């Protein structure tokens, strides 16, 4: 009984700041918006149906899904060598190398985007180098468009992929790779035939995590896209704060949650079938 009592303060704060708002969100997604733009109490799926029938919603969903699938895959592919290096590094280096890979998680994403503006902007590092070599006359547009969003999102997802891969690969038995090498396999062959299959579950877990995070990312698409890139997250934000159409924003958020839940369930199913 005393255990319940000890959990009470934390549970109360979560009840007030989490359960109640999310329940209200679900409830408001069933409301209607009148032609005048006011919210009207209702209990219907009308708002959600309107969104589902709208081609723009599907365009947003497609953009969002392809964006986070591409960036997620690249992030995992780039995190793999980092995690492999950490795994084979001498123990005294492992801590520092892991810290360097994961620390960007706690640097505010807006701060990192300012760094990207200095790298990718018209007067940024890459354009300075390109102009110095003399390849281009006019600056290449690398920011305030989809390219910028893809680069920024990939970088922001990488630390999460590193986190999963460092934990996942740490458990693999490195003697298997040594055995392959002893038996005459080249490095490439050892990697393709031994390391990669062993790492597959960790890679899949990392991809799923970063895909889910990418789908709901807001700051990177908004700032790196310069207001010209539209994904589900930016649309929810605009509906809530610019159009002030709460039922539509809530319905869109519920659809997002539903799709994420579906993705998780599918993954569970696939894992079960694979076993």
């Amino acid at each position, binding site marked *: 009984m005393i*255990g*319940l009592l*000890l*959990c009470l*303060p*934390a*549970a109360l*704060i*979560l009840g*007030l*700041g*989490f359960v*109640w*708002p999310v329940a*209200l*969100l679900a409830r*408001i997604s069933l409301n209607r918006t009148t032609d005048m733009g006011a919210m009207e109490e209702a209990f219907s799926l009308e708002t959600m149906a309107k969104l589902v029938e709208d081609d723009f919603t599907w365009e947003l969903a497609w953009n969002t899904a392809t964006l986070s699938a591409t960036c997620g895959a690249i992030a995992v592919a*780039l*995190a793999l060598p*980092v995690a*492999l*290096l950490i795994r*084979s*590094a001498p123990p005294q280096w492992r*801590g520092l190398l*892991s810290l360097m*890979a*994961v620390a*960007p*998680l*706690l640097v*505010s*994403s*807006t*701060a*990192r985007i*300012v*760094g990207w*503006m*200095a*790298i990718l*902007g018209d*007067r940024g*590092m890459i354009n300075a180098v390109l102009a110095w070599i003399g390849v281009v006359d006019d600056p290449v547009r690398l920011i305030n468009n989809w390219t910028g969003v893809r680069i920024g999102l990939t*970088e922001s997802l990488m*630390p999460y992929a590193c986190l999963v891969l460092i*934990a996942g690969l740490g458990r693999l038995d*490195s003697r298997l*790779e040594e055995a392959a*090498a002893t038996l005459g396999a080249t*490095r490439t062959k050892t990697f393709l035939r031994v390391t990669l299959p062993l790492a597959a579950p960790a890679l899949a877990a990392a991809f799923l995590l970063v895909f889910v995070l990418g*789908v*709901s990312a807001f*700051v990177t698409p908004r*700032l790196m896209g310069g207001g010209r890139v539209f994904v589900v997250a930016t649309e929810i934000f605009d509906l809530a*704060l610019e159009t002030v159409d709460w039922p539509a924003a*809530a319905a869109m*958020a519920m659809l997002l*949650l539903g799709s*994420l839940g579906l993705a998780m369930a599918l993954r569970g199913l696939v894992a079960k079938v694979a076993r």
Partner: protein
Amino acid sequence: MRPGWVLRLAAICGYALLLAPALLVCAISFSAGDFLTFPPPGLSLRWYAALVSNAELMAALRNSAVLAAVVAVIALLAGGPAAYAIARLDFPGRGFLAGFLAAPLLLPTLVLGLALLLALQPVKLAATWPGLVLAHAMVAIPFAVRIMTTAFGAVPKDLEEAAWTLGATPLQAALRVTLPIAAPGAIAAGALCFLVSFDETVISLFLVGPRLSTLPVEMFRYAENRTDPLVAALAMTLIIVALAVVLLVERLVGFTRAVGRN
């Protein structure tokens, strides 16, 4: 097996991508120029001076620091006892509560922010201190509970039982034996909660108003509209705070363990 050069090269590329933005922010923040130009036309501290003399941004910095400190204390006071109960006591609903207290981490912050706006606006709590404290405490508590559950769980139960045998009440044993041993974990949890609140952008974007704003929100808006090195100096301030917390947490409990999901 020693890593081959292909792996090394690929890993260096990975690290370069991870660390480049923060390094560039650092370089640009000392720029003497008027834009985010690289290489900077000259070095100066003028944008730090501009930052310090910008009343709006300094007010936002003060708000963020106060908010983060309050949130860290609340998260520890509410999360600590819960973590102790989950790590040490057996009671009905323990598994459910452990899951529930981690639940906010499952939802995107964008959805949480929207939900909080819809809930707090009608009761006039949006853009107020209590509203922001509630929102930030909600996202900080799961971190506090997770880190402190591990910290309490790592203290051998025998020590507490020895204290009981010597006549201590369970409360005395928990406060005078287990808590001091778990103190590094508690400090790490507090530091991390401070940072979670200090860096929180998306939820705050939904909840701030003209009279109450936070530093990440101001930085977001600045970066949305203008591109001079002031925003780099601002970003540098946040990076330094984050770095301090990361190093503190790393020393106390190990950073990868604190933020890892298992």
